[in-house]
């Protein structure tokens, strides 16, 4: 383990936040509104405690683990060398595929919004190239990049959401009663799905430097993510209404298309879409880094960077092969990927960690 390539808890938190903005905008608000209808804007309130519980649980299982022990090592320690490695390889394969999915998803979003009639391959290729370049570097560099981009992202999101406020209609958001709780809970599922994806970053936990005496300084990524999720859902639903929000591809960017920022700049979706691409870069790079970290643990090879190029190549292949057109891709995006994510990140990973903890392996 590279002793100089260490990050702090806060840096990991920021990296998680910036990365998860990428899948969040793919899923919201359509998935939440599909389940929760008009009350979807409150679904975040239900997703947040569930996300917090998951994060607290994983922290508890990791509490006494050695500092340089990542999730891959924990799986091997908890499940045994064979089953543990099998689990690690499973995760690595899924994440390799997921990396390609991220790249393709970003490319499709670009085509749907600001580059009509463009070519997905060129966007996918550029994204993979940049992610390859960054994933080959140090974890601390990637997390510092996320730290620098984070305030810019938050500022842009805040400005555009506030600019969309005049178009929000209470008729699209109300009424909400206790009877909507069930729908809200279902609507919270996609949001929780995104929050649960933070579990993948536990594979990088071995790079986190934990201060011995004082409380670790953490960035409240879960609350921030919930706020962004709330904002996106609230403003999109409030502007378009329930049915349009579900029917439209990239409903959030449709709303952005029609706002005027400070009454001066119009049609800022190009800026917002491309700023959001940075989150895709960071997430994709983080995923490639995680995959390389897993393979490093499984094979025992010291240098992680060795695995980045083949992982990127496989991700690229999956990006191109996953679906022939946007309709087929939508099926992956709406059902298959969220379902597998939920199973792996929200159920399997915590279960594996719990097994190791119960067996007192760490």
């Amino acid at each position, binding site marked *: 383990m590279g002793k100089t390539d260490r990050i702090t808890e806060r840096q990991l938190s920021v990296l998680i936040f910036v990365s998860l903005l990428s899948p969040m905008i793919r899923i919201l608000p359509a998935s939440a509104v599909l389940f929760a209808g008009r009350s979807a804007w409150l679904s975040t309130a239900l997703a947040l405690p569930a996300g917090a519980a998951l994060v607290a649980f994983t922290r508890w299982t990791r509490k006494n683990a050695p500092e340089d022990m990542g999730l891959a090592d924990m799986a091997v320690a908890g499940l045994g060398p064979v089953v543990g490695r099998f689990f690690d390889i499973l995760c690595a394969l899924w994440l390799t595929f997921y990396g390609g999915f991220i790249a393709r998803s970003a490319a499709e979003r670009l085509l749907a919004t600001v580059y009509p009639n*463009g070519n997905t391959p060129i966007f996918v290729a550029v994204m993979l190239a940049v992610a390859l370049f960054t994933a080959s570097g140090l974890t601390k560099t990637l997390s510092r990049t996320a730290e620098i981009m984070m305030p810019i992202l938050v500022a842009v999101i805040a400005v555009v959401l506030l600019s969309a406020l005049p178009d929000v209609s209470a008729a699209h958001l109300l*009424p909400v*009663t206790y*009877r909507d709780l069930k729908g809200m809970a279902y609507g919270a599922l996609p949001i929780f799905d995104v929050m649960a994806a933070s579990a993948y970053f536990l594979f990088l936990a071995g790079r986190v430097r934990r201060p011995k005496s004082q409380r670790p300084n953490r960035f409240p990524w879960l609350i921030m993510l919930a706020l962004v999720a709330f904002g996106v859902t609230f403003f999109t639903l409030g502007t378009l209404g329930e049915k349009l929000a579900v029917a439209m591809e990239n409903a959030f960017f449709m709303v952005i*298309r029609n706002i005027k920022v400070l009454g001066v700049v119009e049609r800022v979706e190009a800026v917002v879409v491309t700023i959001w691409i940075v989150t895709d870069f960071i997430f994709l790079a983080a995923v490639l880094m995680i995959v390389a970290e897993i393979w490093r643990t499984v094979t025992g090879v010291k240098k992680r960077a060795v695995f980045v190029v083949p992982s990127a190549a496989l991700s690229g292949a999956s990006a191109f092969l996953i679906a022939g057109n946007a309709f087929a891709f939508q099926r992956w995006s709406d059902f298959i990927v969220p379902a597998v994510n939920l199973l792996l990140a929200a159920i399997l990973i915590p279960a594996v960690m719990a097994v190791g903890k119960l067996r007192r392996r760490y």
Partner: protein
Amino acid sequence: MKKAICALLAVGLALTATSCSGLTLFSNYRRLENIELVRTVTADRDGDGVNVSVYGTAGEQSEARMYERSGPSVGVAMGKLILMPLGREAILSHTETMLIGEELAEISIRECLDYVERFSEMRLDTGILIVRDGTARDLLAGLSGSDTPASDTIAGLSLNIAKVGEGYFFTAREIASSMADNGCALIQCVRGVKEEKLFEARGDLNLEPAGFAVVKDGAVCQYLTDEETLGVILLLGKYKSRNVDLALPDAAVTVSVDLAETDMKPVFDQDGRLAELRVKLSLRANVINIAGEADITDEAVRRECERELTEIMTGAVRAAVRRSQELKLDYLDLEGVIRRSSPLKFEDMPDAWEDVFPDLPVTVEGSGVLARTYDIADPPELSGKEDKNPWEKLIESLKGS
């Protein structure tokens, strides 16, 4: 790794070079000087197909031009139109309004809306207007003058009618949202009128609002009268102030209504059925003009004005609601109002809203208040009355009370 980076840089430079020469990979590359900026688009029926025209400018100093094309659908016709003569290319991202001819609107609005929604260049806040008593193309041509571009005339009307409560330019987003939520929508209608004496430098026609059209199943099914239009405007709150003429026995008083609050209260019976919808209209107006003999300082005269005002406005609201019920189209979103007001009771209603709505008793009550007159209550030189000293008037009034 270094070789990979060098390869990437080479590709990047190649992309740059191609873009410099115009051979870019992206379809949204345009040379600014070839752009024809389109602010207004029209669509009319043309046989079995559609005729579209755009009103474009190549620049501030350039003369605005009209271009038109026909095709079997809006998409095909627009596709032909975008690639203009002399290598010019229309850009629709600055389109503010789409004018749809009456004939086409009565067959299908949906196609035009669909084009606005799907075509990523166009904005969802594009105003949609239906042109009555003529084609949209002719209206646009008639509005085009050397001094004031047609688009500015339309933009001006859009701002003004909302202020004076004569109408409202619904945007594509609002129409689509209403159609999705309520199954129907309202669209502003306009017509061109000849005004020879007005602004000779302008084109042949001026633009005036012509009420609302009701859209159902993607096509216009009904045009609202002026009274119904006023009722809709009051109920939806789409105005800043509205001038109303009040006919008194000896005078005509014009007031400006600056506040018209609507309070809708559903009444449910013991079985949970929606028995009635009570609409209370609160009005506040200010006197802006008196023609004839009317002493506005006289309380009786003011009461008469208030009664007349209330009658006119409540009549308009009644008319709007009645029409909505006759058509069985809830374009006023009364369902949403009732649902927000009593959500649980609404959900527990034994009958579906679609069944209840057409026969739902709606009572409209109103109260109007004349708040003030501006500057002068009773101009002595015009009324013919003796110009009394204000102190004398005050003493008289105190004696009188």
